[in-house]
């Protein structure tokens, strides 16, 4: 049974399917509304997800995987020249924060660029706060971005484009929900209705819930 669980969880994480994946993981692991106080996933002998990283925020501060502990993190990978998917995701994250009202302060939205060549600290600083004042954008060297992408099993690839942009980035476009202890909890899907995403998030947003 344990190996079945592992395979199914790996499938749920490896091919994020939004609320479906979340519900599958929830059923298998018994994640409930009390999950926020439960032990981290790794302590159940399940595949590690996430890991150490070092990046630079759009405010020029060095951050690592411990910086945002204590808050529920919404983690999205993208690039600022992305006109469609990335603003859609960042808008959704911002909307969720607003709709959580005062509980929104327990959420830390994070935007990690997969295009560090173009998305410098300066570019990110003039980009991210247009979405939400609480949002933090992160960039780094190519190897630093590689490290966090690997930790979260994020795929990204520079693709030449006939567009005026020269190249675009293919990238995993899933919002990861990381709990206050740094453990992966759920994914939010961009095709998901904001109400569903909000319900997923509410489980983790309120301390002690």
């Amino acid at each position, binding site marked *: 049974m344990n190996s079945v669980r592992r395979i199914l969880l790996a499938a749920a994480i490896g*091919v*994020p*399917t939004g609320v479906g994946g979340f519900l599958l993981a929830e059923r298998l692991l018994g994640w409930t509304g009390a999950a926020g106080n439960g032990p981290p996933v790794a302590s159940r002998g399940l595949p590690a997800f996430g890991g150490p990283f070092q990046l630079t925020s759009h405010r020029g501060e060095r951050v690592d995987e411990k910086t945002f502990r204590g808050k529920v993190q919404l983690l999205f990978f993208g690039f*600022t*020249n*992305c*006109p*469609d*998917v990335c*603003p*859609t995701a960042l*808008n959704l994250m*911002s*909307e969720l924060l*607003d*709709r959580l009202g005062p509980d929104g302060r327990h959420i830390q939205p994070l935007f990690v660029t997969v295009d560090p060549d173009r998305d410098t600290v*300066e*570019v*990110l*600083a*003039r*980009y*991210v*706060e*247009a*979405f*939400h*004042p609480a949002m933090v954008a992160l960039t780094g060297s190519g190897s630093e971005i590689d490290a966090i992408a690997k930790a979260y099993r994020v*795929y990204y690839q520079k*693709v030449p*484009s*006939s*567009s*005026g*942009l020269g190249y*675009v980035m*293919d*990238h*995993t*476009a*899933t919002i990861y929900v990381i709990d206050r202890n740094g453990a992966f909890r759920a*994914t939010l899907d*961009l*095709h998901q209705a*904001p109400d569903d995403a909000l319900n997923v998030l509410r489980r983790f947003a309120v301390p002690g819930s």
Partner: protein
Amino acid sequence: MNFVRTSLAALVLLRITAACAAQPSPPNVIDAWSRSTPPSARTGVVYMTIRNESPSAETATSVESEAAGRAEFHRTTLEAGVARMVAIPRIEIPPRSEVTLEPNGLHLMLVDLRRPLVAGATIRLTIRFASGLSREVDVQIRSSRPSGHTTH
């Protein structure tokens, strides 16, 4: 009196006939909207529905806008959680049907914005079709935040 009535009826009939025989008109564009962009954004996006009411297919081949250096059709695909964006050289609208450009699907990408797109303003586009017809479109810029907040 009767003469006036008959003349009026004839006039109306003439107008209708004229309308039917008129030059084909380009597809209509409905609900064209865009999102406000951050100060450092190089790209913007436009969504819309293009409705072709004519009995023959139409193909949108290019778009120009005062707001950006270039405007290109793209399609986003989301498969196995990975987003990919592919340039679409043209969009065909079959007879008596419509094509919708919407988030996470077909969209018009504005590249090299001349200035940030500001909520509440409009930008003008010209869509050119293979038939030689073109359609001018006013695009409403909405706040990038669905809740309508602005943070500047």
